[in-house]
């Protein structure tokens, strides 16, 4: 450890007479003392400007500036105010002289001729005091330095803890990339780890950064932010944009980026702070929702058309009957005419009922409420009945029905629902069959009944064949063919509720063949009360 006793202390000896200075130096010369001599008050003040002293031995009787004046000036200066002054004099030891010395700041007197040992002893006391004061001063300094170091260390720990917390926060954002970039050079200083998952690398020069730099939205936001900042516009300079970038596996990812231009760690350095969140799933869901709304709107438009169409003959017939009734010409011929008109009106009411039933069925299927009421049914007999009922409609379309029905094809089915399947498939064949014959075949294969309805009309493109069984879907323009676009969807739901399947084979211009496979026994299909 460093010892203060080894360090020499300065002692200032002030006397206008060189022999006195020599005498004082001779007496006080000792290791650890550095004796500095001054031949006048001015000379002493010069030394005090340059160095610190442990004690000053000051002669009272000096020309120009005596000891008292010199002492007064020494005490006026902040740096030298505390330095103890011992007056050296041969003049007088009376009380008034001593008081004058103490008034100007002397701490002691020594009268010539002085006793060397007493002089050394007195000086030694002040040197010790000086050394102790110095030691206390240094200890204080050391303590202060240790405190400063402790505070700095504490601040460093806090900063590191904060850095770690922010890093955890940044890395905790799994669906978004946090990044920092230089807005001028476009150099990226930080890219958080989700860039690795999305783009195969979180390097500050990796694919994420390269695509960002080449992205139009990013460049517009960056240059816009810089321009606003340079114009002196008040902040915050924040921008939001969306961008489609390519992932490591080639798929596209939609990022919603929020970016802010701000001052970096140094006030003059600007930084771009960004958070780019993966919103691909939201975008895809939005697109699907938009398409679904489009399909729904088109369906509503078609549904309103289909429901309005039968109302025209219904309204005209009712108005005609109203005129006939108002004419008071209740002749038998008019009554007969009205009877026919009522039949026509009822036919239109049936048409409207069928349309509303289709809508109700879709509602039931969507709500999972399509219940089957199974009974023993002969499919061939059922098909024959349906064909008989549809005969006028089929004849009006100019079609022929060619039936090839095996005898007694029995099964546990819901009669009304299977009738609906057969009706929908035949009316579909009539609608798209271009007036050509429709073949209807009922047969069995192992434990299943097979129903085939084949028309020779416009046919269905391969890409549309799966779609036509979906809700609201149709393979033709609603401008050319009416209907709600629900028929085949309902058919498929009923068939599947029976544990069966439906398939279509078709080529454009060569007609379409729909084949329904229905398990004959419940055990091979679904429970008796089946909810879809």
């Amino acid at each position, binding site marked *: 450890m460093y010892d203060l006793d080894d360090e020499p202390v300065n002692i200032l000896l002030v006397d206008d007479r060189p022999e006195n200075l020599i005498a004082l130096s001779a007496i006080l010369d000792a290791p650890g003392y550095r004796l500095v001599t001054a031949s006048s008050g001015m000379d002493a003040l010069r030394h005090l400007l340059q160095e610190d002293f442990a004690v000053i031995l000051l002669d009272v009787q000096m020309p120009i500036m005596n000891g008292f004046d010199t002492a007064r000036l020494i005490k006026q200066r902040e740096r030298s105010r505390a330095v103890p002054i011992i007056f050296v004099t041969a003049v007088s030891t009376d009380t008034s002289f001593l008081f004058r010395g103490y008034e100007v700041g002397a701490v002691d007197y020594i009268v010539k001729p002085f006793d060397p040992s007493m002089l050394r002893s007195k000086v030694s006391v002040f040197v010790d005091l000086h050394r102790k004061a110095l030691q206390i001063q240094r200890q204080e300094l050391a303590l202060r330095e240790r405190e400063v170091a402790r505070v700095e260390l504490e601040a460093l720990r806090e900063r590191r803890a904060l850095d770690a917390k922010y890093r955890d926060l940044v890395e905790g954002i799994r669906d978004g990339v946090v990044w920092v970039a230089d807005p001028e050079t476009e150099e990226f200083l930080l890219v958080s780890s989700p860039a690795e998952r999305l783009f195969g690398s979180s390097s500050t020069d990796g694919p994420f950064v390269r695509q960002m730099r080449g992205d139009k939205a990013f460049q517009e936001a960056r240059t816009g932010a810089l321009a606003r900042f340079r114009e002196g516009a008040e902040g915050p300079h924040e921008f939001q944009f969306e961008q489609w970038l390519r992932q490591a596996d080639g798929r596209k990812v939609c990022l919603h980026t929020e970016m802010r231009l701000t001052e970096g760690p140094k006030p003059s350095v600007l930084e771009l702070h960004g958070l780019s969140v993966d919103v691909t799933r939201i975008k895809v869901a939005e697109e699907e929702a938009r398409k679904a709304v489009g399909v729904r709107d088109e369906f509503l*438009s078609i549904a*309103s*058309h*289909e429901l*309005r*169409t*039968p*109302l*025209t*003959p*219904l*309204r*005209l*017939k009712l*108005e*005609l009957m109203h*005129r006939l009734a108002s004419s008071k010409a209740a002749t038998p011929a008019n009554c007969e005419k009205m009877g026919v008109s009522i039949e*026509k009106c009822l*036919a*239109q009411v049936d048409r409207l009922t069928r349309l509303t039933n289709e809508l109700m069925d879709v509602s039931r299927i969507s709500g999972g409420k399509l219940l089957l009421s199974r009974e023993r049914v002969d499919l061939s007999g059922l098909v024959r009945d349906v064909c008989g009922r549809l005969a006028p409609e089929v004849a*009006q379309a100019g079609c022929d029905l060619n039936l090839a029905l095996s005898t007694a094809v029995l099964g546990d089915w819901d009669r009304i629902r299977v009738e609906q399947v057969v009706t929908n498939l035949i009316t579909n064949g009539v609608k798209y069959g271009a007036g050509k014959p429709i073949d209807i075949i009922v047969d069995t294969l192992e434990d299943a009944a097979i129903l085939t309805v084949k028309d020779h009309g416009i046919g269905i493109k391969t890409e549309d064949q799966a779609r036509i069984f979906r809700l609201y879907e149709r393979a033709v323009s*609603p*401008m*050319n*063919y*009416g209907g709600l676009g629900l028929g085949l969807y309902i058919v498929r739901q009923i068939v599947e509720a029976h544990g069966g399947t439906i398939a279509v084979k078709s080529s454009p211009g060569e007609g379409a063949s729909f084949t329904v496979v229905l398990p004959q026994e419940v055990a091979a299909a679904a429970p008796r009360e089946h909810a879809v």
Partner: protein
Amino acid sequence: MTPEILLVDDDPSICEVITEVLDILGVHVTVTPSGKEGIAALNAGLRPAVILLDMMMPETDGIWFCREMAKNPKIRDIPVIILSACDKLESVASGLPISGILRKPIGIDDLLSTVQPYLKAAS
């Protein structure tokens, strides 16, 4: 000469009742179930006072019919009234050379008051 109207519609129930209503005016109605057959009737010399045209028909619909009419200077000036239940009719029919629209369900008074000026003009 008995005034004549051409009705182009694939719905037999509508054709039947419109024919019955127009019979009140003593009008002869020629019915064709498609645009193609309607154009064929016009090309064969039929010159009705007005044409009542359904827009939605299989294959040759109302739009096709109007475009075909426009190609033939002999028939392009015959007035056409559109019958439709379509709620987007204005956008569907925009740009077509038509004289009027009757929106389904049609009433007798609407039908008669719409066709009468054309019948008068023809006579």
